[in-house]
């Protein structure tokens, strides 16, 4: 089928198989390989992107379901060479080690802060329950999200 998905603000037109998954569309057609595939079974959250502003696991969404809609990937967060506050906080708080889970963690955190701009620590932990990290033990990730929230509040 022919589809048009707005990815990080720009329309991407493509002719794709009906069965193409959104994550493959983003990586192979839009050329944006920041979105990772971890488990491929909807469990790990590495493939998280925003679809019309809300976090989804792009390994469990068809490209066709995103036709005519807006997707934001980790590549779409920075603007004018400036990292997004959540990206900056992950850097400052050492919220990553190998970095494989990071794009998904960051997108899940961005979605959380849109829905709940000043979450408590338990709320941050609950909101990241769909994202698995094998390296950090989560503490620094949670700290990074809380730091990003308080930076946003101060602005």
């Amino acid at each position: 089928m022919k589809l048009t998905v707005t990815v990080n603000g720009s329309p991407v037109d493509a002719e794709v198989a009906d069965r193409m998954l959104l994550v493959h569309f983003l990586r192979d057609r839009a050329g944006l390989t920041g979105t990772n595939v971890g488990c491929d079974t909807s469990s790990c959250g590495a493939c998280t992107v925003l679809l019309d502003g809300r976090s989804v696991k792009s390994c469990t969404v068809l490209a066709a379901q995103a036709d005519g809609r807006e997707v934001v990937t980790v590549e779409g967060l920075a603007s004018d060479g400036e990292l997004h506050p959540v990206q900056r906080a992950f850097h400052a708080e050492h919220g990553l080690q190998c970095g494989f889970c990071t794009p998904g963690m960051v997108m899940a955190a961005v979605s959380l802060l849109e829905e709940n701009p000043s979450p408590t620590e338990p709320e941050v932990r609950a909101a990241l329950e769909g994202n698995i990290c094998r390296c950090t033990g989560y503490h620094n990730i949670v700290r990074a999200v809380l730091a990003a929230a308080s930076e946003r509040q101060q602005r």
Partner: protein
Amino acid sequence: MIPAPFSYKRASSVDEALDLAASDGDDAKYLAGGHSLLPLMKLRLAVPQTLVDIGRLDELSYVREEDGHIAVGALTKHAELADSDLLAREVPLLRHAAGQVGDPQVRHCGTIGGSLAHADPAADLPAVLLALDATLVARGPEGSREIPAGQFFRGLFETALEPGELLTEIRILKPAAPAWSFQKFTKRAIDWAIVGVALQGGKVALVNMGPTPLRATAVERALTAGAGAADAAALAADGTSPSEDLTASRRYREHLARVLVRRALEESASRA
């Protein structure tokens, strides 16, 4: 993992959805949030020839009050249920349970209608709607019909829906007794319930204690006869047939049902 080939069609109205499904007969399936169907298709456990995407039928996405009952559109997402002020006031059990389904990403996609139609015995919302004695509204080529939740779940992943029939609405009478509780026992945050309990007033429904969600009738009868929480909860596994799997043996599930029903009765008493 990639699903087997199929042809994708998108419906822009309920009538169009019914037509599209009918034109492909038994090989067509509706696609709502896709969060039960797509994982199965990726594993090739489901191989529909046609997917009829009903995900954009905004006309079926709502929570509203209608004379004496609450009407929920079948395409309403878990996240929207969990965020609904009307549900918080009138049916807090459903609002709370919807917020316990999967994780935020799942709740941003999955719908209440998909959850009911899929009829996974480990799913949360089917048991909740059983405890609420909800009525489900289905539309087919011949028009609409109402199905009581108690007659909807027929077997493992099997419901009263005819091929091509579309679930459109869930109707919930405002609960007469305010006491409610939802208990979900998991090993890890994101897991499905090993066993779950939904309780509204004197109605108690169990998650994952058999091939379908089911009412704990022995518990309900004991409560009506005046039994206390501990005595009633001791009957929670009566008439159940839980499966065995990697997470739990049958005996463990029976034990959990008794413990969780007791907790549910105690918690709900504090809310009465």
